[in-house]
């Protein structure tokens, strides 16, 4: 290019002379837009090898290109014109590029400043003060493109500045490393799908080295399943070959890694690629995962609302009432209870959070509510809730929990009691997923472990907040009703919501384990009630021993040998969840409504009763030929968990409506018939 320019100007000069104009000095070619500089880092040789790097400083809004420039442009090139004897230059180690889009065309390149490192292999006998000369050629574009070049030189013995060395190391972090896992690509006329054996619970991106298999303007759809990530793109115009090379950037637990991979082309993914990675239709990420701050806010609000759920309210109201007696008592005492309760709540959430993270790290596909997927846990909850109900009725006294012997409430409350109440509250809260909790929990499991734990703790804080507030503020306590005889009756009355919870949990157990499990639970409850009655009535030492044995024995027996999950589906209505079936129905332009639920999920049951089984909604579904599909998450199911994850969620309920020919729409956590109807009508007409 320089040669043509100088030829052109030489011509102009000659013409000027010939036409008799006063000959001025020829215009020198303008300085290039991009300034390029070569340096060599001698201070940190590795096995005699050193890094050379060319620094390109690019004016704002202009860019130069990556080794695959994309839809247009030319890769930046370095041609080593002269190297001392015994020195050889390797290939450019390209840092990961950025995408630039103009007018629908997409390029891969660099802006502002980029270093292109090149390894120099230096033999022992090399002339260490020799000169290194490189010709750099590049295309710099904004709205227009200018090819430029520069001849750069440096001495092998030069010392690079500190700034240059740190810039070099920063750049080397951005250079993809060779991917050492498995990679496969399946490509047909419609789609190109790449599967990589690695994890990315947050962001993932792909840059092609083999150009044209998919349009550079296509946004890759990212999917995940047990230890693998996948990229799905529409097919582009280039012909396919037997392998696809590319660079992937994956962010997992807050750490971003760049890898360069070669994926052999296969007809179908081999067995080690989970079939749930690419369901027949790849579901787009309908909701971007929340940032940490938003997740924390949602978690706190969710925790607050959880206090109102039927699972938690009885326990909470008793606890709050116990404070009313302390209205005139020392603030410190109430505060002690408040803090102990909060500690109990936080500790329980921390435990659940840790368990969830540990299981997730181990690759198990689980989500919030996973505790209830195990009948043993449900049975343990049954025991606890039933015991609390009997205690409220006065069948036995547990000074530690709610009240002293013969006292109304809370005369002998200890900090341990408050702590235990906190733990109980959390155990009971699980089946009630409040709104705001679902997206917060979905986000929590994509964040790094520490941030994830923070979300769980803030959730706990939200749950504990009302009680903590009352325990801190004497003014609030004064607002509480004055204690009296009515409190005893109220306490006994609260036993009945507890019995209702017990009944519901036993029903869940029955659903999970069948008739045998049901009988086991009933037998256990009868044994418990009998033993406690015996202990209350009998003061004879021998009898007491017998009742104690019965009590402890039946609990131990139940927990050591819990009822087993029975096979088959737990929710016996409508179509069963099948990702392939969803795709088939979609291609047949049939609308689909997916209800992700579980037998133990109270909010789900509520929504179903109130909204989804409502006659107006049932007839709306019939009228629009909407297939109602139930994703039953009562026990662990990888396909459903993967489907939930693709919407940024990891718990139930989740309601998704797939209008024919359009993107799926996610409905809120709490449904009303009007809400469902409006959502469906809006989605269909959009």
């Amino acid at each position, binding site marked *: *290019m320089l040669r043509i320019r100088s030829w052109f100007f030489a011509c102009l000069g000659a013409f000027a002379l010939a036409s008799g104009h006063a000959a001025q000095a020829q215009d020198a070619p303008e300085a290039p837009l991009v300034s390029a500089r070569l340096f060599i880092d001698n201070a940190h040789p590795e096995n005699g090898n050193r890094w050379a790097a060319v620094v390109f400083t690019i004016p704002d809004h202009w860019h130069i290109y990556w080794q695959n420039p994309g839809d247009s442009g030319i890769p930046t090139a370095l041609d080593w014109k002269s190297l001392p004897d015994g020195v050889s230059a390797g290939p450019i180690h390209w840092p990961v590029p950025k995408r630039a889009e103009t007018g629908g065309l997409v390029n891969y390149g660099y802006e502002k400043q980029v270093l292109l490192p090149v390894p120099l292999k230096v033999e022992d006998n090399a002339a260490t003060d020799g000169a290194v000369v490189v010709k750099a050629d590049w295309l710099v574009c904004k709205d227009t493109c200018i090819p430029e070049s520069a001849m750069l030189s440096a001495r092998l013995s030069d010392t690079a500045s500190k700034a240059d060395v740190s810039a070099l190391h920063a750049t080397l972090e951005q250079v993809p490393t060779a991917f050492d896992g498995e990679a496969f690509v399946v490509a047909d006329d419609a789609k190109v799908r790449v599967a990589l054996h690695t994890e990315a619970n947050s962001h993932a991106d792909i840059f092609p080295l083999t150009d044209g298999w998919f349009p550079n303007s296509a946004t890759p759809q990212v999917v995940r399943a047990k230890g693998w990530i996948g990229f799905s793109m529409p097919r582009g115009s280039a012909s396919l070959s037997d392998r696809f090379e590319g660079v992937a950037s994956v962010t997992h637990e807050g750490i971003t890694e760049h890898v360069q991979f070669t994926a052999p082309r296969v007809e179908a993914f081999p067995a080690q690629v989970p079939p749930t990675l690419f369901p027949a239709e790849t579901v787009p990420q309908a909701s971007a995962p929340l940032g940490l701050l938003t997740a924390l806010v949602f978690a706190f609000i969710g925790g607050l609302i959880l206090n109102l759920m039927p699972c938690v309210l009885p326990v909470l109201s008793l606890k709050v009432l116990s404070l009313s007696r302390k209205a005139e008592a020392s603030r410190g005492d109430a505060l002690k209870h408040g803090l102990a309760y909060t500690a109990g709540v936080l500790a329980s959430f921390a435990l659940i959070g840790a368990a969830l993270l540990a299981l997730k790290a181990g690759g198990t596909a689980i989500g919030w509510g996973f505790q209830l997927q195990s009948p043993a846990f449900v049975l343990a909850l049954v025991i606890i809730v039933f015991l609390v109900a009997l205690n409220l009725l006065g069948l036995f006294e547990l000074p530690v929990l709610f009240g002293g012997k013969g006292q109304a409430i809370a005369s002998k409350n200890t900090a341990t009691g408050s702590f235990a109440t906190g733990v109980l509250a959390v155990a009971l809260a699980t089946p009630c997923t409040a709104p705001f909790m679902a997206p917060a929990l979905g986000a929590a499991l994509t964040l790094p472990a520490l941030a994830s734990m923070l979300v769980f703790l803030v959730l706990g804080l939200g749950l504990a907040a009302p009680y903590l507030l009352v325990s801190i503020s004497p003014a609030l306590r004064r607002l509480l009703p004055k204690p009296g005889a009515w409190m005893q009756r109220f306490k006994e009355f609260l036993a009945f919501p507890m019995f209702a919870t017990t009944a519901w949990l036993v029903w869940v157990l029955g659903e999970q384990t069948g008739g045998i499990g049901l009988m086991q639970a009933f037998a256990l409850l009868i044994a418990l009630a009998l033993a406690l009655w015996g202990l209350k009535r009998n003061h004879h030492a021998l009898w007491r021993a017998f009742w104690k044995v019965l009590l402890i024995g039946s609990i131990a027996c139940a927990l050591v040998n819990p009822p087993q999950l029975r096979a088959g589906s737990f929710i016996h209505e409508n179509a069963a969840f099948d990702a392939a079936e969803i795709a088939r129905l979609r*291609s047949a332009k049939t609308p689909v409504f997916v209800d992700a639920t579980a037998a133990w999920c109270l909010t789900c049951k509520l929504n179903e009763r109130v909204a989804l089984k409502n006659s107006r909604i049932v007839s709306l579904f019939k009228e629009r030929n909407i297939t109602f599909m139930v994703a039953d998450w009562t026990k662990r199911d990888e396909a459903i968990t993967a489907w939930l994850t693709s919407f940024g969620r990891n718990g139930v309920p989740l309601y998704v409506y797939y209008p024919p020919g359009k993107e799926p729409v996610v409905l809120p956590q709490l449904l009303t018939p009007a809400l469902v109807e409006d959502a469906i009508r809006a989605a269909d007409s959009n």
Partner: protein
Amino acid sequence: MRRSLLALAAAATFVLPAAAFAAPKIGEPAPAFAVKDAAGEDVSLDALNGKTVVLEWSNFGCPFVKKHYGAGNMQATQKAATADGVVWLTVFSSAKGKEGYMTAEEAAAEMKKQGGAPSHILMDPDGTLGKLYDAKTTPHMFVIDPEGTLVYMGAIDDKPTPDAADIKTARNYVSEALAALKAGKPVADSNTKPYGCGVKYAD
């Protein structure tokens, strides 16, 4: 069996809309168009049935177009082709306000100045023809056989540089495609990666 049916169904949902977009594919009918050229004449692909057609996307502001026009390479290829009865269409798809945008008169005048010899100059400032062919760069070349089938799409030659000195040693893909068609042979290298500046579509 079910899986292949599913795959077929899945593919169908994408192929059908793709057919609607008529993205150019080697071995398939080239996307049809009917426009007016810079002189006001009607030019339609259907009317050109029976003739070999070459489409050349261009932009006189682009250094890669300047490389080929500056060295006389594009003009020579045009002349050789049109002498053989090939219909050469040069398309300008730069949007108004972008580099390479010209009025029809300016385009005709500039082409004459450059010594180019296309059969027609097509002005495409709204980018319709460009998007129909998924034209990405200037230059970007397409060759259509007399039956209307697309037989070549991609670069003008195999040396993607802005340096005119590389033309001498480069393989001119368009000349090769035309020669293959003339000899009744299949076109080798029918789908190459085009190089050049991006087509200046509207944002």
